């Protein structure tokens, strides 16, 4: 088996005295969609923040494509091909839609126009809104913009933090379909979700995170059938 694209080993991180991650180890192989499910405050976002370099881990290693990227500055990690769509979309409301997309291509030296065409092909709605301020878009459009913005860098690894949060069911289905499309075109995806049902449906493998530690892992279909997962995350009642 080839080396994983992303390997996290014994990662510990926190905010001040509060430990949010207590020794997490996981692997993401090239071409996979891996989902990380867990309840609010389990440490999912913290993990992504550490991978993106926004948070300096207290211990452990983050290895991307064979290179130790632990504690690298965010811009270097982005330039290596790891892009994150943060929770809450974080659109630059004061910039136009086009400018938002161009921000996504900030580290690129060439190929911006071609990347823009690809993103607009994926999200035709954004083409009609290019001149509008990012803040004027609807929630669903903003999520599309956030994903499109990250894709402008043509990342090898895309980190998605709660892309379905606050969206209507129809849009949620659409977003997950887009995740599948992005993955089919060769981008490895890490998907952090509270919507475990949808996430397990689209992912190849899954990890369950609880209060900063991994408790379960396996193929998504197996986890989706696991009674513990069904009880805790899929809203199934006890017999």
């Amino acid at each position, binding site marked *: 088996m080839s080396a994983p694209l992303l390997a996290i080993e014994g990662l510990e991180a926190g905010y001040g005295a509060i430990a949010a991650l207590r020794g997490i180890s996981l692997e993401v192989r090239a071409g996979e969609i891996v989902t990380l499910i867990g309840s609010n405050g389990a440490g999912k976002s913290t993990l992504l923040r550490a991978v*993106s*370099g*926004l948070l300096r881990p207290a211990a452990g290693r983050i290895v991307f494509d064979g290179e130790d990227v632990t504690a690298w*500055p*965010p*811009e270097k990690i*982005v*330039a290596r091909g790891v*892009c*994150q769509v*943060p929770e*809450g979309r*974080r*659109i*630059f*409301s*004061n*910039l136009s839609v086009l*400018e938002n997309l*161009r*921000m*996504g291509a*900030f*580290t690129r030296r060439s190929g911006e126009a071609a990347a823009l065409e690809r993103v607009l092909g994926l999200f035709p709605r954004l083409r009609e809104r290019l001149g509008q301020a990012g803040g004027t878009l609807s929630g669903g459009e903003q999520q599309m913009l956030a994903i499109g*913005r990250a894709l402008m*860098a043509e990342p090898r690894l895309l980190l998605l933090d709660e892309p379905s949060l606050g969206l209507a069911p129809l849009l949620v289905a659409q977003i997950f379909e887009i995740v599948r499309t992005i993955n089919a075109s060769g981008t490895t995806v890490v998907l952090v979700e509270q919507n475990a049902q949808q996430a397990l449906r689209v992912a190849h493998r899954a990890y369950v995170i609880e209060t900063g530690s991994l408790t379960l892992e396996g193929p998504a279909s197996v986890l989706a059938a696991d009674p513990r997962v069904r009880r805790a995350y899929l809203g199934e009642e006890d017999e």
Partner: protein
Amino acid sequence: MAEDLLQQLVNGVAWGGIYALIALGYTMVYGVLKLINFAHGEVYMVGAMTGYYAARSFGLAGAPSLLGLVATLAASMAVCALLAAIIERVAYRPLRSAPRLAPLITAIGVSLLLQNLGQLVFGADPKFFPPLLESRNVFEVGKLSVSNVQLAVLGTAILLMAALQWIVMRTRFGRAMRAVSFDAQAAALMGVPVDRVILGTFVLGAVLAAAAGVLVGLTNPKIDPLMGVLPGLKAFVAAVLGGIGNIPGAMVGGLLLGVIETFVSGYLSSTYRDAIAFVLLIAILLYKPTGLFGTTQTEKV
């Protein structure tokens, strides 16, 4: 009477252009760091001082020329850019994750340090800026007159503000600056080197303040190491008037403050000239804290 009013307006606008240039530095730094850089007035002072020494060493004293003015501006801008970069790197960057009060107090400290360092290096006695342009009226109708110096001041200010607007709205750096000012973390996730953008913002503000320092030397040649204190504070008021963090706001705020000051000293009493800016500040904070162009930012919870 109308001519008189127009004359005051011309004088006020020329003076306001200088405030606008300084105010831009306050507002841009506030935009990216939410910091009021109280040392900015001292950067302007160093700009004037550098201009003075540069003009003399270029042999421009007694030999005014437009080319000489441009060279003086360039020298002053270069020195102030370096100074601002050092201030940011040494005084503010180490405090990036400290509570917001810490860099603010540091800014006041840097301001005092530069005032006193200025007296040590340049001497406390005032100096007289060599006239870089031969003053003459280029426009005269009845009692109304516009001098070439006024035109040069206003023209340079407008040119620099247009250049700034172009940088901010049309370049990659400007886009990054706007992104950082809206959400620095999201900008970092786009691969923006946030610290470098902040440094660049300080340098950009300092370049404008340097220009203001030289331009002020053309109209008010008496310069000294404490000259930055009052214009610095007033330019801060101008930035607040326009809406702190808002670039066009700082331009309009500066011009407006210049005009108001000139009117007050022309029609009321020149005693009130320096007070009016602070009356204005209190009024804005009471009635429209967001300034003319500012928008209310909703805090995320």
